[in-house]
Structure formats: C-alpha cells, structure tokens
C-alpha cells in the first residue's frame, strides 16, 4: 500500500513547483502538456478541498472558510462538467460532520449527485464494483503508445525525492494511515476471500465507509483523470506519454499479481 501511495503521490505537483515547470513542460510537450499539468493541479486542489471540508478543525467552525472551500469545489466540478471529463466520483459515504453552528449549511449535494448519476455503476455500498470501475478507467492506459526511454511523468521528480519534501502529501498520508488502522479486516464479510484484489477492494470500501476523507480511490481517479478516454484532446494524439512501468506497478499492486 505504501508503495502504491508513494507512486500515486509522486504524480502530484505542488502548485508552485508546477508553475515553475510550466515553461519547460510547454517546451517539451506543447499545449497538451500544459493542459495535463493544469488538470493535475486542478485535481490536487480538488482533493485538498474535499479533505478540508470533511476533516473539520476542532473548535473553529468558520462559515467563511467552508463557503470558500465549497465554492472552489463547485467551480472545479463545473469545469469538469464543461470539459466533458465527467467521471464517477466516490461520494463520501457519510454526510459531513453535522455543524450545529448554522441552520443546515451543507455542501451542495446536487453537484455531487450529477457526478454520481453519470456513472451509476459506481455504487458506494459495493466496493468491488467501485474498484471494477476504477480498473475500467485504468484499462485504456496500456494501449497508449509505449513510453520507452521518453517517460516524462511531467512535473515531478523521482517518487522518493518528491515525497521527502512534500508537505502537501503529509496530510493525505496521515489521513489514509489512520483510516487504515481504523479498518479492521476481521469485521468485514468479504475478507474471507484471500485474493489480493478482493482484499484491496474491501480495504478501499472499508476506508470509504469509515473515514469521510479523501481515500485512495480519489487518488487513483485523479491519477487516471488526465490521461483517460473521455478527454480526447489530451489522450489520442498528444506527444505526452505516461511512465508505463509505474502504471504497471500500480496495476500490479491493485490486482495483486
């Protein structure tokens, strides 16, 4: 899991780093590269925002903060809709922590609703099907032209080097770690099947049920997002290529082969 997460984290550029790298990215990969970097940035911010909303700081329920974060999420979702890159999003299973401060201020469910409706196969209560959806999303990737020596993996450095100085991901890690510890495999029914994929599926489901934070699923999706099918302008004829060895590795971990 750690390796998987490390790999997933490695593709997240910090905004300032990404900004610095923009000219280089543009030089190397043209406009398409820039677009991918933008998509990554957007997904990173989206994930941070989700996490902020669902992990309330103790003692400071600031309405202003929540409204601004929620607006950010709405805007990104609108953008995603316009882009046509609409894909299922794992709906946080429980509603956000009830805030007694206000008279029922909630994150706008309609936006989430639309996203979920677009892919009814991603049913929350069935982790396995969620994972299958994930795999379907990852599926088209290996058919991309092989990267060979040109394996850009754009703005990030090597996974380990990136991790060591990445404050951003500390939080993600912390959250995922806790939920992993919270998750007790013995209590879940499907753990009797010992194949790797089933175990991971349960784990993923378990996390999503227990902790309403950004889970590995979101990360997987975010990883998949810039590269997969529904965004043809990026995927088909762009010079940009993904480090397939890393993706293979993710598949390896996911499928447990």
């Amino acid at each position, binding site marked *: 899991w750690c390796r998987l997460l490390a790999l997933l984290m490695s593709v997240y550029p910090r905004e*300032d780093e990404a900004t610095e790298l923009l000219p280089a990215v543009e030089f190397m990969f043209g406009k398409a590269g820039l677009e991918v970097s933008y998509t990554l940035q957007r997904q990173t911010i989206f994930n*941070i925002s989700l996490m902020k909303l669902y992990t309330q700081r103790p003692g400071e329920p600031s*309405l202003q903060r929540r*409204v*601004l974060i929620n607006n*950010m999420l709405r805007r990104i979702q609108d953008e995603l809709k316009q882009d046509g890159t609409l894909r299922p999003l794992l709906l946080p299973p429980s509603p956000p922590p009830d805030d*007694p401060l206000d008279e029922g201020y909630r994150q706008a469910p309609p936006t989430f609703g639309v996203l979920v409706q677009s892919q009814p196969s991603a049913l929350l209560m069935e982790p396995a099907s969620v994972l299958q959806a994930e795999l379907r999303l990852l599926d088209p990737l290996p058919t991309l032209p092989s990267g060979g020596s040109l394996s850009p993996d754009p703005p990030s450095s090597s996974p380990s080097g990136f991790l060591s100085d990445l404050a951003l991901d500390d939080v993600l890690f912390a959250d995922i770690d806790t939920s992993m510890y919270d998750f007790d495999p013995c209590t879940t029914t499907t753990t009797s099947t010992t194949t790797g994929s089933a175990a991971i599926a349960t784990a993923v489901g378990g996390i999503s049920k227990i902790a309403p934070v950004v889970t590995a699923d979101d990360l997987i999706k975010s990883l998949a997002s810039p590269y997969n099918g529904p965004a043809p302008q990026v995927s088909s004829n762009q010079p940009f290529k993904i480090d397939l060895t890393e993706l293979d590795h993710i598949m390896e971990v996911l499928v447990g082969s």
Partner: protein
Amino acid sequence: MILVRDKQCHTLPNDVPFSAGVASGNDFQWCFSQVKGAIDEDVAEADIISTVEFNYSGELLATGDKGGRVVIFQHEQESKNRPHLRGEYNVYSTFQSHEPEFDYLKSLEIEEKINKIRWLPQQNAAHFLLSTNDKTIKLWKISERDKRAEGYNLKDEDGRLRDPFRITALRVPVLMPMDLMVEASPRRIFANAHTYHINSISVNSDHETYLSADDLRINLWHLEITDRSFNIVDIKPANMEELTEVITAAECHPHQCNVFVYSSSKGTIRLCDMRAAALCDRHSKFFEEPEDPSSRSFFSEIISSISDVKFSHSGRYMMTRDYLSVKVWDLNMENRPVETYQVHEYLRSKLCSLYENDCIFDKFECCWNGSDSAIMTGSYNNFFRMFDRNTRRDITLEASRESSKPRATLKPRKVSTGGKRKKDEISVDSLDFNKKILHTAWHPKDNVIAVAATNNLYIFQDKIN
C-alpha cells in the same frame, strides 16, 4: 489613477527614510518604543492578542486576547528630565471581558476570544468600550476612583444596616482620598442576537447606536437597549445549500450616521443608506474591481475575499484588505479602487501551500494614520507594511525582540522575489508563517503604532530627525 506597486519596489533602500506624510512634512524613521507580553517561547493560546484599538484621543490603547481578557494601556505624560522620550504606555486596567460558555441547545462551545474592541467617544470622566466575542457584545465602563466616602452612620462597623429607628442624627459622609483605583464594570450585555460568528462591531457617529455584523446578518443596536436590535442586512438564503457568500466586515461611516458599508467573501463592498429602507438588503453603492484575467487562478475568489474594511477619518475614502493587497476606494467611484498596494505579492506562487495549511484564510486587518496619508497592514514572519499615499513609498518592518532596544531604529526588511537573494534579504521559503501580524493600530493623532505579534504588543514611534 490606479497605482499598482511593482514587485521590485517592496522596500526602500535603507538610506531613504520613510515618510508617513505627517502634516509637518518631517521625514522620520520608526523606532522601537515598548514591547508588552511575556518573552517565553511557549505561548499560551489564551495570551494571543486578537484585537488592538486606540481610543479617540490616543491616550488609551486596548487589547483583547483569546482568553477573553481586555488589557488597557494608558499613555503616561513625558517626563521633564527625559524630553526626548515621549511618554510610554503602561497598564491601566485589566479585566475579564468574556468567559467561555456552552450553548446547550446547539451543543456548541462559545469561545471567550475577543473578536473586536471599539471605544465610544468620551462623554465624561469615564471611558466606555464595546467588546465582543463570537456571540455576545458587552459595554464596559472604565472609571477611576481616588476618593472614598467615610463617616456613614447607616451601617455598623461590620457593614450591617442599622435599625433605622435607632438612628437619631443625620451625618454627612466625608470624601477621603485613597489610592487611585481603576474599575471596569459591565454596563450592558447585548446577547442572543447573532446566530453566526460576530466579525465586526462599529459605533455610529450619532454616538447612540452601533452595528454588529456576523457571517450572514448585520444588526443595529441602541447603546442603552439590550433586549432588542434591528436587523438591517440579512443575506442568508432560504436554502443554505445556495449559500456562496458571507459578510466579512462592516463599518459605520465616520460622519454620516445613516451610511455603513459591509464587505463580502467575494471581494465586493456594499454601501447602504439606512434612510432608504429599514432593511438594507438593497445597497446604494456596490464597489467591485473587475477580475484581471491574466492573474486568474483557482484561488482568485479566496484571495479576493475581504478581511477588513475601514473608512478614512475624512470619510471620503475606504480601505479594504484582501489576502495579497490593500485597496483604497473613493466612495464616489465604484468600479475600481483609486489605489492598490501589494502587501506580499511574492506569495502568489505559494497559494496552493497556503491553501493547504489554511493560512490563506488568515484575516489581516488594516488601519489609517491620523491624517489618512498613510496606511498600515500586517504580513507573515512578523513583518508589517506601510504605504505612504502621497510619496507612493512603501516599507516592510519587523516586530521582533532582537531590535527591541530603546529607541532603536527599525531596519527596513526585504523579501527576495526570485533570482539571487541579496544580503539582508530573506527568501520567501524561509518566512515563518506561524508568526503573523493580523492586528495593528495607528494613534489617531501621533505617529505611534501598536502592532500585535502573537502574544506580544509592540509599540513603535517616529524618530524625528
């Protein structure tokens, strides 16, 4: 004319003194005067200063902290044998203004933190101020007592009332001098009118009413009446899911008692006229600067959210602070500010990290000097910034214990923005984002400023050449 400071002129060369544009026209430098608060590295949460405010004469300076306390400092007259030193501020009165409470209906803790203090104009020997936490506003009277009445014959020596039938003579008590005692007593408590967190209070120029603003509503109070207030703005949508904007600050006009402004999280300011209607949901003026498409980013809305709004003393202008800049607006021009000053533009490339660690939601305040010719606001790393509106100069200064020798001149600081870091410059990456100056105050007449840095209050003054 829009004045956008260019990145390269964040500070002046060290040899050019910063003029705060005082009427005398003297150029001067800022020098250290005093620092209040413990030196201890371990800062108790309760000791963190949450608001700073001079009274109308500048004789008193009040601070509020997260522990619900109000500390008032008084300006001591300058001593004759040290004429170069203008007087110091010493503790005048300390009192517990608010206590932590628990709302049992909503199962919610109400912090004692003092969000704002506002002085009332002085009417008699006593001083009055309003202090507020998230929910409750209190009117405090601060008065001196240096005499006590002696010689009553209505009570025993141990204080019990005597039987009136056994008192046969009328004895007039005598006032005897005693040590000076400063008393703070709560005179009015304005409670139960705000569902959301109060972010602003502002005393009206009629000296009889004041307004209080929370995230979604603004109420108008009479200073004498605690059991009712008038709701003058309500932006709460019927369906809270449609909520996209909150009120971030509000203030009464300094001279026209029917006019007030409030700012929003979308970077706009609305000016309302209470004569137009009882409920000022429809603004009279709407101040908004069109977004610059070239600097648009995911964080555009968050960084445009206004954290403070202040009318100039003259009442002609108002100043707003957003995350990266301070803007001065002419009340007669709604479509753009007349002046824009960059406070810490170098943070623009760090917005994602600042979003992630929540610093982007920090609420920096701003203030005018007495003659409206200069403005001041805070930044990170215990830096604060001043902008001279006449000379267009700006300066970055630091509130630190290292330069806190008496009358030591404050050295201008500079943050290097990309490229090579010069000597005496600090790089953006080494800024300490835990040391932030959110609250500052400028003496209404003199060039004396109070700067709150975590649990310390720094007082600086000009050094006349």
